[in-house]
């Protein structure tokens, strides 16, 4: 588990037409520890969670999420984007210990 922290995937439809509203699925590996739990030995597990997510489409910031440790382990987030141009869709997840994790995918239109 620990080694995979920050590994992320973004999925968009395989076929995209210009102007279409597409659904973007994403997941990032992260423990999202609340700080309220203890280990088996009784040691407190400090809070460790993704606190912000920034979504950019081309050069434009299209969404920004503020999270707490109330988001479940290995956070998934699904949202839509209006695919009006061919550009890179990128997401950057930042955790409360300064970890920054990035993933991107290309929005490219289907040629008929």
């Amino acid at each position, binding site marked *: 588990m620990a080694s995979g922290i920050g590994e992320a995937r973004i999925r968009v439809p395989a076929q995209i037409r210009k102007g279409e509203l597409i659904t973007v699925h994403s997941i990032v590996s992260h423990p999202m520890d609340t700080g*309220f739990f203890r280990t088996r030995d009784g040691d407190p597990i400090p809070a460790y969670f993704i606190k912000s997510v920034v979504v950019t489409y081309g050069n434009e910031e*299209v*969404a920004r999420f503020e999270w707490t440790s109330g988001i*479940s382990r290995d956070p998934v987030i699904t949202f839509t984007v209006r695919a*009006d141009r061919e550009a890179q869709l990128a997401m950057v997840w930042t955790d409360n210990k300064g970890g920054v994790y990035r993933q991107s995918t290309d929005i490219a239109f289907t040629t008929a």
Partner: protein
Amino acid sequence: MRLPLTRRNFLRTAALATGALLSADAATRAEPLWAGSVGPEDPEVPNEAVARVLRERFGDRPIRRGHVSLDMPAVAEDGRVVPVIIESDLPMTPDAWVKGVHLIVDHNPDAHLAAFHLTPAIGSVSITTRIKMKRTTWVRAILETSGGELWADYTRVLVTLNGCG
């Protein structure tokens, strides 16, 4: 708002009925389950933490019910992973859009669980994620439009396993 008999509404109603049956003996104890509620579809009166979040984020602007659908299971067996779907029919155009979606879980340690800041490029409000819930409580999805209007939906989720520690 008159709700059509969709699968969601049917499940919600069925679960509220189940919850009422399960808590029949709890209701006779000191803590009334529906304290402050006007009806089974209305959320309870905000507790101190929720009231603070609402005041800080929205001031004294009215929060109306409508234009938002907060879809969650009526019964969450594992509070560590509870699916959430938030959708809205409000426009997402350069002239008028939903600029913020706030998810509030009344009795969680951090009630203001998440905020999703959006732009017209997002095209629609259709957000899916998974959250943790400490115990049975109301959940609030509150949308803020670019014009400053506030729209909400509420749902009560019965939690059997504490997901917050």
